[in-house]
């Protein structure tokens, strides 16, 4: 096909320190890294996909109980967190753009902003978890109890078992997402350090770009988690 890399034994290219020995050209190296990142994101889609599948099955079975459990989440904090993540995606995109145009100081600023936003997200998430512990909404702990009734059915109390399934999924999915955020913050700390050394420049910013792809992906997962977990059956 058309993308067969035309690699020539170009010895001059090997004097470039950023070019690893087994690649013929910088172009080839860059394309390889980018494809690798996308394939990694494929595995991430399938990783979260397993949990989304479990979610779908139980939401289909226990729709009413899921509605009640969902409404017990703090919508304000959830919305704020969504906004925080969207802002962080913008700062990441800006950081990559700064590398493209060669504004090396601005890269660091945007990366630090991203880290701050990422930490803010994690902080808010921690507050939400704390609330769930205080309210006895943690599955598997003795004393789990969710007050309330099925949406629009004041006479049907929520099923405690099914509510536990909801919260199990909630903790598994948001927990796995938070783990990705923590990894992301670590990754961006490294990138910010490298950027402060002036490593990323218009010709070479692949690690930064791939880090950005990762961050955007984690953002997209949240874009789905937010309505699926927080916004089930909230209407009166």
């Amino acid at each position, binding site marked *: 096909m058309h993308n067969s890399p035309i690699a020539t034994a170009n010895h001059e290219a090997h004097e470039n320190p950023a070019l690893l020995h087994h690649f013929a050209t910088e172009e080839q190296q860059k394309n390889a890294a980018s494809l690798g990142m996308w394939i990694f994101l494929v595995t991430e889609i399938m990783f979260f996909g397993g949990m989304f599948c479990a979610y779908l099955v139980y939401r289909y079975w*226990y729709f009413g109980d899921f509605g009640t459990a969902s409404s017990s989440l703090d919508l304000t904090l959830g919305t704020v967190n969504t906004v925080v993540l969207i802002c962080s995606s913008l700062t990441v995109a800006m950081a990559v753009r700064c590398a493209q145009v060669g504004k090396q100081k601005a890269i660091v600023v945007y990366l630090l902003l991203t880290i701050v936003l990422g930490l803010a997200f994690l902080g808010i998430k921690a507050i939400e978890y704390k609330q769930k512990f205080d309210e006895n909404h943690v599955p598997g702990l003795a004393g789990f109890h969710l007050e309330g009734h*099925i949406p629009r*059915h004041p*006479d*049907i*109390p929520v*099923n405690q*078992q099914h509510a536990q399934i909801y919260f199990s999924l909630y903790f598994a999915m948001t927990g796995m997402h938070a783990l990705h955020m923590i990894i992301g913050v670590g990754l961006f700390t490294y990138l910010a350090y490298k950027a402060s050394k002036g490593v990323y420049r218009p010709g070479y910013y692949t690690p930064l770009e791939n880090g950005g792809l990762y961050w955007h992906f984690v953002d997209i997962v949240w874009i789905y988690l937010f309505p699926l977990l927080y916004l089930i059956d909230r209407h009166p």
Partner: protein
Amino acid sequence: MANNVDALYIFLLVVSALMSLAIFTMVVFFAVRYRKQAGRSAEQIDGSHALEITWSVIPFCVFMVFFGWGAALYFKERKPPENSAEVYTVAKQWMWKFEHMEGQREINELHVPVGRDVKMIMTSQDVIHSFFVPAFRIKQDVLPGRYTVAWFHATKPGTYHLFCAEYCGTLHSGMVGSVVVMEPKDYQAWLGGGGNQPLAVTGQRLFSELGCVTCHRSDTQGRGPNLAGLFSKPVLLEDGRTVAADENYLRESILTPAAKIVSGFKPIMPTFQGQISDEQLNALVAYVKSLGQQSDATGGRGIAAATSQP
């Protein structure tokens, strides 16, 4: 059923044997005929779409015969005939507990009459087990939290192996038993032995003891739906869905009543999850089903009679 399964099995065996014979013969023939010889070198052939299509389409057609035959058999295996004798089965690590409609209880041994359809209504108290009687060619996993169903029709008296076929922990291989198929008269004699209370009667007693009867009345005045004639009928639910009132529906409605509210009723029934044993649950289900088989009037009387108890 065993004969039907064996017929398909033998058909598969013959077709596979022919296919492998053809392939093995070709491999051996080519290996010998075209071995390296002086003065002859390999003739290059790039392939042939015509041949490739042939050996895709022909096997595919044969496979579709396998599929169709296997599927037809499966539907027969999975759908118990009406009016089968019913045996409620509770599996646990590592034993089989059976309860006949007539009230006989057995452990690891199942007595059934020859020439009668027998429907196993099974659940597990702990992990997944699997009810497997090789002689009848049937197998069905037994799951915690719901009923699964299997059926068979024994044609020859004798004693047959019963195995648990799904790995279930330490003594998985000890979770074995036997199915004793008896001549009808022997079976009747065996049934007559115990002076047991029929399962539905046990269920009826529970029905009043647990207070079910105060709401599920035989008239239309009850706070709960009238259960007479309910079994296997479609039920219209409050949320507009219609479900079939099968064993799993009855089970769920007793354990988590709020899950499926019958149209026109309020969800006031308390849950019985964790309050009754699997055996009691089976008895209740058997009782409600028995209401379906009797005429409404008899069912009503049965309940009315039971109301006199405290």
